[in-house]
């Protein structure tokens, strides 16, 4: 906030290159820094890469000791993630081996002496995640946009207090809010419903989207609207035809950040859903197999869950700073 508003006289003298920056020593320094940065990046990414590898391991490879870096990739983890299975008896296994109509997943599961009996809940939970994250994002961005516009353009009484109130809602710990929300939802029958979760995530994302969008709208010169108003547009028309098109970047960034927040959210989902509306995050840790944790399946689930977020991180890198500070800081 304060940092960005400072003038930068340095900018104007950049036509000359500083003599001390072309010598050999600075270049060696840069090279050393680059090498250290690359090494650190590799270390930072080891856990994620290891997860990706584990997702394609068979069970013996996943729990091999010492851990295996080289292995034969298989989709066993994904099959186990997406199916429910039962243990086969010796005779059944022999019988199944005779059959020629088995699909690839069936064969993979048979290797472990099991047969697929149906789909697991994971697909449905991912779908729940999508529905709840999608709907709550839409509503929070929609209402957030309206409020942000009003806060940005009009003289709202008690503006600073209201804005601070809105931001402070985001600071409340999920565990604290969830106790009374749990009671309230049980009273009105919203416990373990999609609507209840959408409502909750909308309200939590709303504070964030108001702040983020206000920052973006503040940057749109108000002269455009004023010109439109002079030309006979009404306020609403000016908002729709002038402000909205210019705020598209901001809306897109806010949408994706809100999506990630509700996509990643764990605590509320754990407390307030059980079966019907359960999202994916609370269910990933409970992917247990018959012989302890099926690490390949856990890793496969985690991977499926992470990939969209990693893609989004790259797509949003210019707006990342704003996003993770609730729009409080603008420079990126």
């Amino acid at each position, binding site marked *: 906030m304060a940092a960005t508003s400072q003038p930068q*006289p340095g900018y104007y003298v950049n036509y000359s290159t500083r003599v001390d920056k072309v010598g050999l020593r600075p270049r060696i320094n840069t090279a050393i820094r680059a090498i250290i940065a690359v090494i650190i990046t590799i270390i930072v990414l080891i856990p994620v890469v*290891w997860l990706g590898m584990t997702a394609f391991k068979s069970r013996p490879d996943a729990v091999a000791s*010492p851990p295996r870096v080289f292995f034969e990739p298989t989709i066993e983890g994904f099959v186990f993630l997406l199916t429910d299975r039962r243990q086969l008896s010796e005779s059944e296994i022999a019988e199944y081996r005779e059959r020629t109509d088995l699909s690839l997943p069936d064969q993979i599961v048979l290797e472990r002496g099991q047969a697929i009996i149906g789909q697991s809940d994971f697909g449905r939970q991912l779908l729940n995640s999508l529905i709840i994250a999608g709907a709550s994002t839409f509503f929070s961005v929609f209402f957030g946009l309206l409020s942000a516009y009003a806060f940005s353009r009009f003289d709202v009484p008690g503006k600073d207090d209201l804005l601070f109130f809105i931001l402070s809602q985001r600071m409340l710990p999920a565990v604290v809010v969830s*106790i009374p929300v749990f009671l309230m939802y049980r009273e009105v029958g919203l416990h373990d419903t999609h609507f209840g979760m959408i409502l909750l995530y909308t309200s939590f994302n709303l504070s964030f989207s108001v702040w983020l969008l206000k920052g973006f709208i503040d940057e749109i010169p108000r002269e455009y609207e004023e010109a439109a108003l002079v030309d006979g547009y009404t306020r609403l028309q000016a908002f729709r035809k002038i402000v909205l098109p210019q705020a598209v970047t901001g809306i897109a960034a806010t949408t994706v950040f809100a999506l990630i927040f509700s996509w990643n959210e764990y605590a509320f989902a754990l407390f307030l859903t059980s079966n019907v509306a359960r999202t994916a995050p609370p269910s990933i*840790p409970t992917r247990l197999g018959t012989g302890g944790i099926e690490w390949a399946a856990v890793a496969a689930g985690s991977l499926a869950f992470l990939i969209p977020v990693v893609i989004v*991180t790259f797509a949003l890198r210019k707006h990342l700073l704003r996003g993770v500070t609730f729009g409080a*800081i603008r*420079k990126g």
Partner: protein
Amino acid sequence: MSQVSTGRASSQQMGSGTGSARRQLSDVRITQLFILPTIVLLIVMNIFPLIYSLFLSFTEYSVIANTPPIWVGLDNYTRILSDAQFWEYFAFTGRYAVVSVGLQTVVGFGLAMLVRNKFKGSPIITTLILVPMMLSPIVVAQFWKLIFNPSYGILNPLLGFTNINTSPEWLGDGVLAFWAIIIVDVWMWSPFVMLLVLAGLSAIPEYLYEAASIDRASPWFQFRRITLPQVMPLLLIAVLFRTIEAFKQFDLVYGLTGGGPGDATKTIAIRLYELAFQDFNTGQSSALAYIVLVVIIAVSNLYIRALNKAREG
């Protein structure tokens, strides 16, 4: 701020201009219409529940019992505050917050200094380092659990422990579990500090350094007198955000250790969860929730004060 006041003036001008009190009225209406849904939703979903749980915190009540709440006054609060166990959870949470946020600040600052000046490939490296903080904490906890595993995890071999019998059992020992949590937390959130420090660094005018090098100021002097004070406001914001998050810490620690071994890594939020959703002691858990809330508000206020001071000075 100045932008706001000029805007206000011009919008008033607009209203009093080309003959319409109607438009000004409609502006007010639009304002109300636009802000109302947000405020109503926040009040229904956040303020009302908070007031409700304030009431419950003074009662003896369990959501699974069929009896209505019984007013017990301050009993819940005195019971929590006089229980040594709770102070241990608070102490653990505090210790975790201080160590973790401290390390994140140092590591994040270091990373920012490292990628500060552009080199070939630095944008992509910066983005890659930022990946951890975008991930879901519970998923992060899962794959770190796999990495910490003493028999098939990859951390011990990487650190040079090849004998399973003598290698550390990261999540099975109270002290090591604490550091395991710190490692994961620092891994996940140092990038956040880096991001904010980078924003601060990019706003430092180059002429300050030029003036300093003309005066032959040492690099250390430049760092202490130019870099640090200029970055301080944003660094403090980073620390504020991370500290508040640390006091709220639930999912990462719950996923990694579940509070164990024993009670060794139980944060106050995990205890709160157990009290509310496993023991179903709703009255007492509401009281604990309020105590946590007060602590968080107190911590944020301390920081905001420091922040304002740093900005003025």
